[in-house]
């Protein structure tokens, strides 16, 4: 059982949690994740450790409510507990010295990219962040990124904030104007990471993506998280989650992530119905 110390929404359906986990807070490195269960009968889901304070003994999780488990989690408040929390899991981000590194975050992907941006900056790198969202309220962690990056470019699909367009448009623009860019980290929806890989490939820029396949144990035991990288099968939970973007089979990942689409849709509808009942108890009008 891990106690939630703080919880608040930072964007629509996106909640920030500070969770008591002293050992994990001490041990974790950028790029690693935890597996949690919200309840004693719940699903095991992976969440990136967005931040941590080893002295105070907490880790931060930033969660987008997309389905039953994440939406249930996002109902929890400070003082509530997570039933299980295991971690840190996965390989830490590889941090080297670069001329200029660009960190690209799409939606909640920004939360996953943030600790890597911090680690790159801590290693003395110049870091540029491109953080995208559908519109202004979906762009997250802008202030936090500004605190560690030399330049930060918010982008929105509708132009309501920052650059009007996709993160990849901004990235292409930066690469064209800044020859020092020699490392790119991209985290977000699969099509976005795929598009980033296509942008950097012709320039031969070393590019890393953090993959989000479906996981169960997170320890290399089940093989459910397998992805194809350079034609080889790898387990994202122990060999990744970060891989060379130019070698990843994104189409396979996108397809495999749809395995339980029908089930997830059903559970999500069910959740929405129960949510409706909770907000409008029977008999109320």
């Amino acid at each position, binding site marked *: 059982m891990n106690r939630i110390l703080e919880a608040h929404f930072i964007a629509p359906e996106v909640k920030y949690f500070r969770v008591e986990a002293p050992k994990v807070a001490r041990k974790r490195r950028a790029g690693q994740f935890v597996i949690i269960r919200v309840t004693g009968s719940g*699903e095991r889901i992976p969440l990136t450790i967005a931040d941590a304070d080893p002295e105070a003994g907490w880790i931060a999780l930033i969660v987008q409510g997309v389905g039953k488990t994440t939406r249930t989690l996002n109902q929890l408040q400070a003082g509530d507990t997570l039933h299980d929390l295991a971690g840190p899991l996965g390989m830490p981000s590889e941090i080297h010295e670069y001329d200029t590194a660009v960190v690209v975050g799409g939606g909640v992907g920004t939360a996953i990219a943030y600790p890597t941006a911090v680690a790159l900056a801590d290693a003395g790198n110049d870091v540029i962040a491109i953080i995208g969202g559908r519109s202004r309220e979906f762009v997250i962690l802008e202030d936090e990124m500004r605190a560690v990056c030399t330049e930060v470019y918010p982008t929105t699909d509708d132009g309501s904030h920052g650059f009007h367009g996709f993160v990849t448009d901004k990235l292409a623009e930066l690469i064209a104007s800044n020859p020092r860019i020699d490392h790119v980290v991209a985290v977000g929806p699969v099509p976005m990471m795929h598009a980033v890989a296509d942008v950097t490939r012709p320039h031969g820029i070393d590019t890393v993506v953090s993959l989000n396949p479906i996981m169960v144990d997170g320890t290399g035991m089940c093989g459910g998280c397998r992805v194809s990288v350079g034609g080889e099968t790898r387990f994202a939970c122990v060999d990744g989650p970060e891989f060379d973007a130019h070698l990843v089979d994104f189409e396979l990942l996108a397809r495999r992530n749809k395995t339980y689409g029908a089930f997830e849709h059903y559970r999500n509808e069910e959740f929405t119905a129960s949510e409706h009942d909770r907000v409008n108890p029977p008999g109320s009008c």
Partner: protein
Amino acid sequence: MGRDLTRRERLKLTRQEMAEQPPETRAVNFDEVNLGYTPEQAVAEAERCILCSHPVCIDGCPVGIDIREFVRLVADEQFQDAVDVIKRDSFLPAICGRVCPQEDQCEGACVLARKYKPVAIGHLERFVADYERGHGGQTDTKDVPKTGKRVAVVGSGPAGLACAADLVRVGHDVTVFEALHELGGVLIYGIPEFRLPKEIVRAEVDQLAALGVRFETNTVIGMIETIDELLEDDGFDAVFLGVGAGLPRFLGVPGENLIGVYSANEFLTRVNLMRAYEAGAETPLLDLYGKTVAVFGGGNTAMDAVRTARRLGAAPATILYRRSEAEMPARAEEVAHAKAEGIEFETLVTPIEMHGNEDGWLTGIRLQRMELGESDDSGRRRPQPIPGDEFEIAIDVAVVAIGNDPNPLIQKTTPDLEQTPWGTIVADPQTGRTAKVAVFAGGDIVTGGATVILAMGAGRRAAASIDEYLKTGVWEIVAETEA
């Protein structure tokens, strides 16, 4: 007192068959298939034992249980005494009585096996262990003085649990670290409820907790803490590694990442650990109702997977195995139960390629027919392809159950732990001592995928050696050549 029977009278008695749920009923539920002996049946079966002066059955048991003595006590209706005899050598009789490959071990060795049917040693072991659990459980509450020594046991499978049990009983302070959220290892996430009710595993764990063993679940050693940190920072005096072999092998054929191809570990974990078979489960599983399911492999894992698929509505559910049925490593009882439940067996085939539709879902498999050639080093005849004899079958879901390799998580962060080219940890078979001082290992992580009884035995031998090390402080490794 039991009946006084002559040898000839005993030989005339017929083996007591254990009652089972009828195949039609059990093929749609997850309740245990075997229903157990009645006390009368147990006594009648025990009377079949001719109490050999050289009980060869004992040589067949990997931990040397005094079978003749416990069976004699069953014939005398001294059920608790019988279980006490077993417990001198085995820590998990309710489990081993159910899952040991008896036909290759105790029962295979029994003198009656050649001309008659062997004494049903496994069924009797199960009976007395269940009798004990049903009569207030174990009587193990002796207060032993604490030694003040602390041991970390990594992994809560049969090896880890057995090691923890023996250590706590001699007064050491024991903490078991488990990566998953439930305790029991393969006994919980692998072997299904219909073969080994989880309640039995939980009862064993509860018993250890009552004896003072501490359990820390959700703790992946190698990630949250290395072995060195356990020894140096956390003040553990010794570490036992019972982390099992849990890295699934795949077939290495094109198409095996299609949707609908599971490793047996994933399939069984979703069903057993995450209870995907229960209505309202949070963890999803592909709907198998009316689907064609093929399971690759011929071991216990393959039988568990295919019978699980059957219970989830798969029809047909088929075993695809590259050798012939005679070479199948699964327990004979599981193969017989699978057949009775309508599982189909296609032997002497190996997959060449898996095919899918444009959305990436599995639709079929191309198979190669095999024939048996020369014997290999395991003494089994090696399957070889019959050139040109290939065919295609349509399937919806495939489960790959061709074995596991050791998970490298711990070895990666403990470079001074010697390992074999196969990734298993090198440990002395008698003492469990590894190349690293104060670190012991046993079970599947040392042997590769084996059996519950072997893992349990290794855990107990390591416990004895840990106790000796903690008392004497002497660390001596048997020279490589002697091992």
